[in-house]
């Protein structure tokens, strides 16, 4: 226990001694270096000025663009690009609306076969009518 305290005290002594015997520069050297630091002016930071300058230039450019309709043109160009991109991406064909008012009005479109049958049936009916009207079959030579 005693040894522990002794070594701690010794440690503190050594620390104290290290601080006390810290190397000290010559006063002339310190003075010379201090003068050197003071005579070198600190450059004024122009951060604020730079930001304001860049902002003003940007505003001027935007104003000039707006004056000649550049903004509208840019907007439409962006819109065109969007549409083109949509066309490229969208591979589906035209959308067919099945349940619309037109579809309910006109119904399903007739297929070719049915049309032919209907035409044949109409011809038969016409021929029968003509036979009935003439009372006898038409002279065919």
């Amino acid at each position: 226990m005693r040894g522990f305290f002794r070594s701690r005290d010794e440690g503190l002594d050594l620390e104290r001694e290290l601080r006390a015997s810290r190397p000290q520069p010559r006063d002339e050297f310190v003075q010379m270096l201090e003068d050197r630091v003071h005579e070198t002016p600190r450059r004024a930071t122009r951060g604020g000025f730079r930001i304001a300058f860049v902002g003003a230039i940007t505003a001027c450019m935007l104003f000039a663009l707006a004056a000649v309709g550049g903004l509208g043109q840019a907007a439409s160009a962006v819109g065109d690009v969007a549409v083109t991109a949509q066309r490229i991406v969208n591979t589906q064909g035209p959308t067919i609306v099945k349940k619309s008012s037109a579809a309910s009005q006109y119904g399903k479109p007739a297929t070719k076969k049915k049309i032919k049958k209907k035409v044949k049936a109409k011809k038969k009916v016409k021929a029968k009518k003509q036979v009935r009207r003439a009372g006898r079959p038409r002279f065919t030579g």
Partner: protein
Amino acid sequence: MARDPLADPGPLIRRVYAYVAYRVGEGAEAEDLTSETFERALRYRDSYDPRRGEPVAWLIGIARRCIEGGRLRPEPVATAGETADPLDVEGSTIERLTLAQAVERLDERDRELIALRYGSDLSARQIAEVLELRTNAVEVALHRALARLRKLLEGDEAAQADTRLRERPSTL
């Protein structure tokens, strides 16, 4: 305008010099490195970010880089008159080691820790930021560095006592 890190340079110069002197030894080299540190600090004054640490920690970071840069440069070739006499070297080892000399005998890592803590008077947290370590790791490393320094000093005292006994003329 951002805070000027070199607003009060006096105490900063003393702390940086103490750090550099603990690392490379007192004298002209320490002064040169301190001057170089402040020259760089003046050049990059505007890049100082107070959110990243105190001005002293920023300066110590620059000083560390200056020391490392100095080490990379080739050593000047010593002239015949400048070369150390081996007898003088032997004599100096027999001489009593001062605390600064004992610090110089420590390895690079320990010397850096001692320099940061007792030279530039940084806290363990600030040292941890400079060395990119954890505060706890810095505290442990510092404790070990002090123990090694104490051992060096004690060893030297024992060697001195031994030398004194050998030098004492025999009474018999």
